[in-house]
């Protein structure tokens, strides 16, 4: 019987903590892994929609329109990005991801009229070709940074931080630094590559303003410039990004995925996506630019309900990483023996850093990569994005909205006190928002 004196579980030392202490004692270095925070944090799951009834009336599913389009970057860019759905694919590097995975994401996103994003390692021509709308990241490492790629991109994203590791730099372990990856990054192959946590030529908001000016000058003021931050002091960071001249701000909550980061960062740095959305919207409203400077939210978006809740709290669009990889069969029950060889099983895998991804998503090994057919992967990503969009529309119609952006905090109630406080919506069944008089 569990719970008796000899078998009860230890709250301070659950099995994964004990095993980490054993690993640390063995290896003497921090643990590096992929994916996002695995511990439970207040999330969109803690919110529910108040569907219309007598006091408000709903729209007919499938008959009455519920639009989903979004324009990003009209603040300063002469060629803003027009997306058919408010769901984008987040920046994930070639190197972390296989070329087939990058291509599949591009094909799937393009089929749905949305964008994909490059990553820490530069742009590959395969992904440019597969992606109708491609956002080019400018990262601290500047690996593969090329002005020609800036010019052929549709938007530019200055990455200041990621939700998985605000304040931390990049990592790509040697097993994934193949010749092609190494060449793109101008590094020796096989090394454990660490990239910087700060940009080499700017620090602080005043410098960032000038950096953005330079990027715009190089690209003739055509392309939207996004600034991506990991969620920490979100209200200040968003305000400063706006002041620095961003067209759009990407806020990545602590649940956000990564290909390889120290676990202590993933689990213990940053705030969840839920409060981050609210803080970001506060900053935009305070500056009078909500909806003029678009807010793209990421970190733990999995379902159309998550999308709808993020939009209701004031986001203009969301971005997805891990869930898009899952659409490509990440953690699917295939090639079980290969999960086993990594010491894991489908549903529990977060071993992207090993480069031995059983389903060919986060690997540079040609045999493993061949398991992911880019065309079929593209179809799966399209289907997944389509499902999210339909779910989001269904919820919006149920709340009586003819555009998903018309969702609002008043359409939500919280199931926990924490979520009520963080999202600033009333605890279900009350009119109580913690912190409000």
């Amino acid at each position: 019987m569990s719970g008796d004196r000899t078998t009860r579980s230890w709250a301070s030392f659950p099995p994964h903590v004990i095993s980490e202490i054993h690993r640390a004692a063995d290896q003497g270095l921090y643990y590096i892994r992929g994916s996002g925070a695995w511990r439970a944090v207040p999330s969109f799951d803690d919110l529910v929609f108040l569907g219309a009834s007598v006091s408000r009336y709903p729209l007919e599913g499938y008959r009455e329109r519920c639009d989903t389009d979004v324009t990003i970057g009209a603040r300063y860019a002469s060629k803003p990005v027009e997306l058919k759905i408010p769901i984008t694919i987040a920046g994930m590097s070639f190197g972390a991801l296989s070329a087939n995975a990058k291509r599949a994401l591009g094909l799937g996103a393009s089929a749905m009229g949305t964008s994909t994003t490059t990553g820490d390692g530069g742009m590959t021509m395969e992904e440019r070709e597969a992606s109708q709308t491609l956002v080019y990241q400018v990262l601290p490492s500047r690996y593969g940074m090329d002005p020609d790629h800036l010019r052929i991109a549709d938007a530019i994203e200055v990455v200041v931080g990621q939700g998985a590791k605000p304040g931390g730099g990049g990592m790509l372990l040697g097993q994934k630094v193949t010749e092609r990856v190494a060449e793109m990054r101008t590094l020796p192959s096989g090394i454990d590559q660490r990239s910087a946590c700060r940009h080499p030529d700017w620090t602080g908001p005043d410098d960032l303003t000038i950096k953005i000016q330079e990027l715009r000058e190089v690209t003739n003021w055509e392309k939207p410039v996004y600034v991506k931050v990991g969620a920490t002091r979100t209200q200040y960071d968003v305000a400063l990004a706006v002041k620095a001249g961003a067209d759009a701000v990407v806020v990545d909550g602590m649940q956000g995925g990564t290909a390889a980061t120290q676990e202590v960062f993933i689990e213990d740095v940053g705030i969840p996506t839920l409060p981050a959305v609210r803080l970001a919207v506060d900053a935009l409203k305070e500056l009078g630019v909500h909806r003029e400077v678009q807010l793209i939210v990421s970190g733990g978006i999995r379902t159309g309900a998550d999308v709808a809740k993020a939009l209701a709290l004031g986001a203009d669009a969301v971005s997805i990483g891990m869930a898009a990889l899952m659409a490509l069969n990440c953690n699917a029950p295939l090639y079980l023996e290969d999960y086993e060889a990594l010491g894991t099983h489908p549903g529990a895998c977060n071993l992207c850093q090993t480069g031995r991804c059983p389903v060919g998503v986060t690997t540079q090994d040609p045999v493993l990569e061949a398991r992911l057919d880019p065309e079929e992967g593209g179809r799966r990503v399209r289907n997944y994005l389509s499902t999210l969009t339909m779910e989001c529309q269904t919820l919006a119609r149920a709340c009586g909205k003819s555009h998903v952006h018309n969702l609002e905090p008043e359409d939500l109630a919280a199931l926990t006190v924490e979520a009520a406080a963080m999202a600033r919506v009333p605890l279900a069944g009350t009119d109580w928002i913690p912190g409000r008089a």
Partner: protein
Amino acid sequence: MTVETIDLDAAGVRALNRRLQGRDGPVAGGHFIVTNAKGRHALAVGLTEAMDVRIRGHVGYYCAGMNREADVTVEGNAGTGVAENLMSGTVRVTGDTSQSAGASGRGGLLVIEGSASARCGITMKGIDIVVGGSIGHMSAFMAQAGRLVVCGDAGAYLGDSIYEAEIFVRGRVESLGADCVEKDMGERAADGLQTLLERAGVAADAREFRRYGSARQLYNFRVDNAAAY
């Protein structure tokens, strides 16, 4: 040879870059003089063709950033990130430069006739940088490829976490960063350095320099290196 003069007080930065990027007419092989720089930022950036640009006066941040092919001379001092991410061509600064000169440059040549501040050549990826004077601390941090040549002295933590770039210093090095060590000069490196000095128009003897590069001890995570991380 016709020379086109662009007065920044009249034209502004936007018009200058449009002109030099060839967006308002052909530029290849052209000669341009830019007056009244007055510390303005992002001057002559994103150029893609061979041309000669002389900027009269001091410039602000990111002058000549991300250029290909072009030869740009700044007759004065340059602010942060001069020639950042340079792809090819040359950039010459007759005065001193602020931080992060040549940051993440991937090719081409940056000549600084005066001295450079901190982080000169940070994350350089193939650019050659020749500094007539001295450089500040943390220079060539995480430098990946290319050569940083310093005729004067180098500040603290030179070449910290350096990858495959090479550093040559004629004067005193205050301290080397993690994983950066002195290496034999050798014939080939000396010959290459002499050619580079000549190309940069700097009268110096390659044999007076010392060569530094990566000990390659931090290329893989290991418990023995924990103190260096």
